[in-house]
């Protein structure tokens, strides 16, 4: 089989498909992280630790900047759901089911502030991490190089589906992503309890305008 150029092409297609859903999430005190466009109507998923204490700024691929509204956050799964007043966005689809050890994955993010970086690896292990509540949290470990700035960005499979939310860097050579199933559950819960969560969030200038 002649692979000449084939891989470059399919990887390019993958990048073209995923990149529009990658955003910058800029906290006010903390450095910038990454985020994922979760639906077309402005839901943005990112790490809780990226958000900091205030509503962060979300920067889309076309450089439009939005003041976000914090809809929900949960430090125990390190996820936060933001909303921006934008429509017609390109969301990513979560992968159905659990990934397999050995399958190829790609991390999208802004490591060390380098915008729109893609790094490749494979799923190294499917394990669970214990959070502060003592709950077992399914995580995807991979050999994808991650760095600060990747936090909150997507780990996608060869089809461009989200298998994890990049979260932590352990020991430099093993990266940890929160399993997509956790993210789905978190978003569903936030949507269900949306009003109560929203009441808690602080008003932001966007609401006034």
């Amino acid at each position: 089989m002649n692979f000449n150029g084939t891989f470059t092409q399919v990887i390019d297609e993958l990048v073209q498909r995923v990149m529009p859903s990658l955003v910058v999430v800029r906290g006010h005190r903390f450095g910038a992280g990454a985020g994922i466009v979760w639906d077309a109507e402005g839901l943005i998923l990112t790490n809780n630790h990226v958000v900091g204490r205030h509503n962060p700024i979300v920067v889309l691929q076309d450089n439009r900047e939005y003041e976000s509204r914090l809809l929900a956050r949960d430090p125990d799964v390190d996820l936060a759901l933001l909303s921006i007043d934008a429509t017609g966005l390109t969301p990513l689809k979560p992968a159905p089911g659990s990934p397999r050890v050995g399958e190829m994955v790609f991390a999208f993010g802004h490591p060390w502030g380098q915008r729109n970086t893609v790094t490749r690896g494979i799923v190294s292990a499917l394990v669970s991490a214990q959070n502060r509540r003592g709950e077992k949290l399914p995580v995807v470990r991979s050999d994808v190089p991650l760095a600060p700035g990747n936090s909150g960005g997507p780990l996608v499979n060869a089809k461009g589906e989200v298998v994890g939310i990049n979260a932590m860097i352990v020991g430099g050579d093993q990266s940890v992503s929160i399993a997509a199933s956790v993210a789905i559950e978190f978003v569903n819960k936030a949507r269900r309890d949306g009003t109560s969560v929203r009441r808690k969030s602080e008003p932001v200038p966007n609401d006034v305008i």
Partner: protein
Amino acid sequence: MSQNVLVELSDALADAAEKAGNATVLVNARRRMPASGIAYASDLILTADHVVEREEGIKVILADGAEISARVAGRDAGSDLAVLKLERAAGTVAEATKSPARLGQIALALGRPSPDGIEASLGTVSAIGGPIRTGRGGMLERYLRTDSISYPGFSGGPLVAADGTILGLNTSGLANGAAVTVPADIAWRIADTLVTHGRIKRGYLGIRSQAVELPEASQKALQREQAAGLLIMGIEKDSPAAKGGLIVGDILVGVAGEPVIHHDELFARLDGDVVGKSTPIDILRGGQPQTLNVMIGEK
């Protein structure tokens, strides 16, 4: 359509990890974290010698989670390989590759350092080298290196080709902590010997020597083109060499009819096959070839 190539490769890698992973076991034979092993037969586990720190209470956990007691069937520090015998036969047996590893080939390093499941890292075969003397007093005719990440507890686990066959056994115990892979054909061969004899015999002559060039006249006397030999600088008392009549100043040029021009070659020739046997040693003494029969000892 073109999308499929990437997805197919990804699926193939996951398939390979699953296939070889079913034959990759957890080996608990040391105090700190467990290491890995390869099911080399239904009741035999091939692992790294250095991870077997105790011979009592060894536990092996299979891919299906079953825990089985094991004992050491044979071990060889020199090649850092050990074979464990399971209390009962179990599980999937690993398939060694039929085509040797090639430079640049995609390879997965697998390990099972925790009961949670298989772990993997992707890389390519980045070097094929050898022979080398290992840091543990052995000799490896060939070794592989990869750029995959060797996670803690990966020693004893397999390096896997994209088709799920085993390219070799990974260990950090041979080269000062750096990950090296013992090629499957060598590892399997040593394992066979370990199962039969429990250990690897290494020959012992009892000489110190230095490689020297052979002048043309010596080569003419030898009646063969051989650029170098080993000048004997010292002989240990009561050693096989002393008993066999070798003296300081002799130039060793062959063992069992095969020319020897380098220490590593002498080391390789003095393998288990010649131990305890009267073996012809070719030397040059005063420029003239002679053959002495020496009863090779064991280290």
